[in-house]
């Protein structure tokens, strides 16, 4: 029975399929006939018409790329400029005898063999009707010499282009960024109409972040061409609209001072105007010269930059992770006051180490003999570790995490540069999720002095310092003043805003900031060396971040440890302390002690900025 059914079915199915094959074939034949009849309509019936159009097709649309917007510093100094350059280009298809043309040109313009070889290899990558550059950046004299002989060189033309240059080179490279050739992946995402005739696009920094503003609007030119394709007449044009000029908040003079102050150290300096969040200086060292990137940097040159152990291409200020060390202590002190855990007058005995109940491990203070009995204010001034071990232990890691988050620890700052990284301030939840481990009480102590899992970026530390200087007003660092209704933070990194203000008791702010002033101005302060001769008060805090962990019974002798394992020196500061106009974070990689290395650097920057305008 079932067998019978199957047979019947398959017979039926066969017929059904065959039927569909016939229908499909008929459809295909019909559709093909449709195509052919359309082709007959175009190629036979319409031949005269289209042939005439094709012969008259002398009007070519050629794009006029807009000049890219300039980038200026806050005082109008040009950080990214466009300069006209002339290049000699050949369209191989329009050149009757390419070989002799090139050798004639070589004589005329003293071309080197290398230039000719490069032309040959470029030519093979292009189509025969593409314009291929033979020499770029011709001098005025060379342009004149060629122009006289131009009629003898069919297919050879001089093109003038605007070329991006960065007059300050490496100094602002990590802020301004650079433009480079549009690559394959970018090409797929770009609107071809907007970018026709444009060969460069912002790759990093401001050039990348504000690409749409800087680019401008492409114009078009209707050009009459002859049969060889050479343009003989311009029939009409739509002028391009230049890209927007961007004025940064950066002060290039201050940037230079900061850069020089850092000396031979690698590291980063970020200075902000606390009230507005404007970035005044943004140094990441070592840096690199962005100019070679514009034409396409040589592979070898790029590799040297890329594999250099110094990592000059790496934006330390924006993406570098460092432990904040003791610079975190003022913030932890605020957390303690606010959580009501401690009264400011409470004293802790510091014997030079701290013991957790039931644990034999000694959490050591940086000062071997200890600080004796010490209150909060002096604990900040002298940077007593034991006091903050105790305080962190009392607050607890989760409360500390929630409080410091408001100051931006472990959070993106929302600065208008792409690629910012968030850093980390740990919590029990974080550790369970990221490490699949439970939290150990000892780790709270270490976090309390800005070590262990805690990681900040220099720009983040500068922002936290600015919020402290503002007595709680939250700001977002930015390099370009946002247009109304266009908060830059929305465009780059979606950041969480806990609110506009961190509401704390006025006495809490006062206590901590007074202590920070003492750090600089009191003889017992860790940075008292930089306090002299100032007409205003500076509030600061030193920090030394461990790179290399020291064993229980070893002692750390800075000078004997290899340079790259030496501690990072940090310093945060703002001034004038009562009405701050600059907030700064300095990080000197492997600089050793914050007090001796980072603090004097900060002073130089602050002094220059406030110098003659107290």
């Amino acid at each position, binding site marked *: 029975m079932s067998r019978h059914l199957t047979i019947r079915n398959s017979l039926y199915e066969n017929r059904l399929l065959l039927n569909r*094959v016939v229908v*499909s074939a008929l459809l295909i034949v019909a559709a093909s006939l449709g195509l*052919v009849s359309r082709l007959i309509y*175009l190629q*036979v019936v319409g031949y005269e018409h*289209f042939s005439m*159009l094709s012969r008259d097709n002398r009007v070519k649309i050629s794009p006029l790329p807009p000049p890219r917007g300039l980038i200026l510093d806050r005082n109008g100094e040009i950080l990214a400029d466009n300069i006209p350059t002339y290049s000699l280009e050949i369209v191989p298809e329009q050149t009757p005898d390419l070989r002799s043309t090139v050798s004639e040109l070589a004589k005329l313009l003293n071309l080197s063999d290398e230039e000719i070889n490069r032309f040959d290899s470029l030519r093979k990558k292009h189509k025969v009707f593409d314009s291929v550059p033979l020499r770029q950046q011709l001098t005025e004299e060379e342009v004149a010499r060629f122009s006289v002989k131009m009629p003898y060189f069919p297919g050879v033309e001089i093109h003038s282009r605007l070329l991006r240059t960065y007059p300050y080179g490496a100094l602002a490279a990590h802020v301004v960024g650079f433009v480079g050739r549009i690559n394959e992946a970018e090409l797929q995402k770009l609107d071809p109409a907007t970018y026709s005739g444009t060969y460069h696009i912002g790759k990093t920094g401001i050039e990348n972040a504000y690409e749409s503003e800087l680019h401008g609007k492409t114009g078009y030119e209707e050009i009459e061409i002859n049969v060889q394709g050479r343009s003989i007449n311009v029939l009409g044009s739509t002028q391009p609209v230049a890209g927007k000029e961007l004025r940064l908040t950066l002060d290039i003079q201050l940037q230079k001072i900061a850069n020089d102050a850092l000396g031979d150290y690698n590291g980063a300096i970020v200075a902000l105007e606390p009230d507005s969040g404007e970035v005044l200086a943004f140094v990441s060292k070592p840096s690199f010269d962005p100019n070679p990137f514009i034409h396409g940097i040589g592979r070898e040159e790029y590799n040297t930059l890329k594999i250099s152990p110094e990592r000059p291409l790496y934006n330390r200020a924006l993406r570098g992770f460092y432990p904040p060390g003791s610079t975190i202590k003022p913030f932890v002190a605020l957390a303690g006051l606010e959580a009501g855990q401690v009264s400011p007058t409470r004293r802790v005995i510091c014997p030079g180490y701290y013991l957790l109940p039931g644990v034999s491990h000694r959490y050591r203070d940086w000062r071997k003999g200890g600080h004796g009995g010490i209150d909060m204010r002096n604990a900040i001034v002298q940077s007593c570790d034991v006091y903050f071990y105790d305080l962190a232990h009392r607050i607890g890691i989760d409360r500390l995490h929630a409080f410091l988050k408001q100051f931006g620890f472990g959070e993106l700052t929302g600065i208008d540069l792409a690629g910012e990284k968030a850093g980390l301030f740990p919590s029990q939840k974080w550790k369970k999720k990221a490490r699949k481990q439970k939290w150990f009480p000892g780790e709270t102590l270490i976090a309390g002095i800005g070590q262990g899992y805690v990681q900040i970026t220099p720009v983040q530390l500068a922002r936290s310092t600015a919020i402290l200087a503002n007595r709680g007003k939250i700001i977002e660092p930015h390099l370009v003043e946002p247009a109304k209704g266009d908060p830059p933070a929305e465009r780059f990194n979606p950041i969480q805003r806990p609110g506009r203000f961190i509401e704390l008791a006025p006495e809490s702010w006062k206590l901590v900031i007074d202590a920070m002033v003492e750090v600089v101005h009191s003889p017992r302060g860790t940075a008292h060396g930089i306090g002299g001769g100032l007409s205003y008060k500076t509030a600061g805090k030193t920090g030394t971040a461990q790179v290399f962990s020291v064993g229980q019974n070893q002692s750390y002798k800075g000078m004997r440890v290899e340079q790259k394992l030496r501690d990072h020196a940090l310093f945060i500061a703002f001034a004038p302390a009562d009405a701050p106009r600059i907030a700064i974070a300095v990080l000197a990689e492997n600089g050793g002690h914050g007090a001796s290395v980072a603090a004097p650097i900060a002073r130089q920057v602050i002094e220059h900025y406030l110098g003659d305008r107290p």
Partner: protein
Amino acid sequence: MNIDSGISAIKMAPRPTSQFVHKLHIDVPLLSGLLVLSGFALIVLYSAGGQNLNVLLRQATRLGFALLIMLAIAQIHPRSLKRYSPPLYLLGIALLAAVLVIGAIGKGAQRWLDLGILRFQPSELTKLSTPMMIAWYLTARALPPRFGQLVVAAVLIGLPTLLIAKQPDLGTAFLVAASGSAVLFIAGMSWRYLMGLTAVCASALPALWYFMRDYQRDRVLMFLNPEADPLGRGYHIIQSKIAIGSGGLYGKGWLHGTQAHLEFLPERSTDFIFAVLAEEFGLLGCIGLLAIYLFILSRCFYIMVQAQDTYSRLLSGALTLTFFVYLFVNIGMVIGILPVVGVPLPLVSYGGTSMVTLLASFGMLMSIQTHRTLLPG
């Protein structure tokens, strides 16, 4: 038993070369058609690509690679193709989802997965795995498919289609939907349902418009009225028509197409390569190309009719129809009777991804043709 082997011995014995070719599971007529087509394509490409030997070499390398893939797939027995249909389909869906997720993280449209040395477009896999899946599903049931089965099939087709449309790659989404639907058509889906489906699709067009990106809307508007913006968006279609029309009956001659060489014609080597062919080889060249295509198609139909099981028939029929849809949509676009969608001219346009997929599908057809046993198994 003895008779069987006797007959097969007679059939398999003929010339030694043929035996060798048969062992490699090559279908000679189909391969010849494909080679003639590819040869012609390279000739046109040399002109369209601005007489650039590099372009030609790269395309020839891709062609060689794709032919090897075809050969490899031809070795797989149709039984295995059938068995692997569901897992392949699921893999395709998973990869599409991965592309979307990665694209969402990386911001902006993304179609491929970066596997280090090569970039792989999962949507290409689904062009094959979707018809395979539908064929697998329908084969297990009696034909023609009933309403319930059609609903299941619609879901199976809709899933990859939507995922690809979301990339957004409407051209490929359309082709995947077409390849799946082709199986249903071959399987004998009743005309009543077919009409109903067409009606549903037609009424869904306004909704589709709503989901389109701006540039996709522009393309449709431009198709409806290219003269509205002759220097802007309508430019491509107008210049393409001038190129084709001015080719006339015999064409301007190889390497002599002014439209293409003076850069009036956009996308000369890729989507609009047919216009270059029409300009330089004229109507006769176009008919020649169509004739090669029709030869390949007729061989495919022959293979389908000869196929011995339902799965093979459904799959080969669907792949054949899809191949035609491909070329019809591209040529229709270039000659201005269909809107511009990013579909290359199969096996002629410059570019590698679709070539590999297409030749893989011809590999399946060869496998179906060369793995036949004398009597139905």
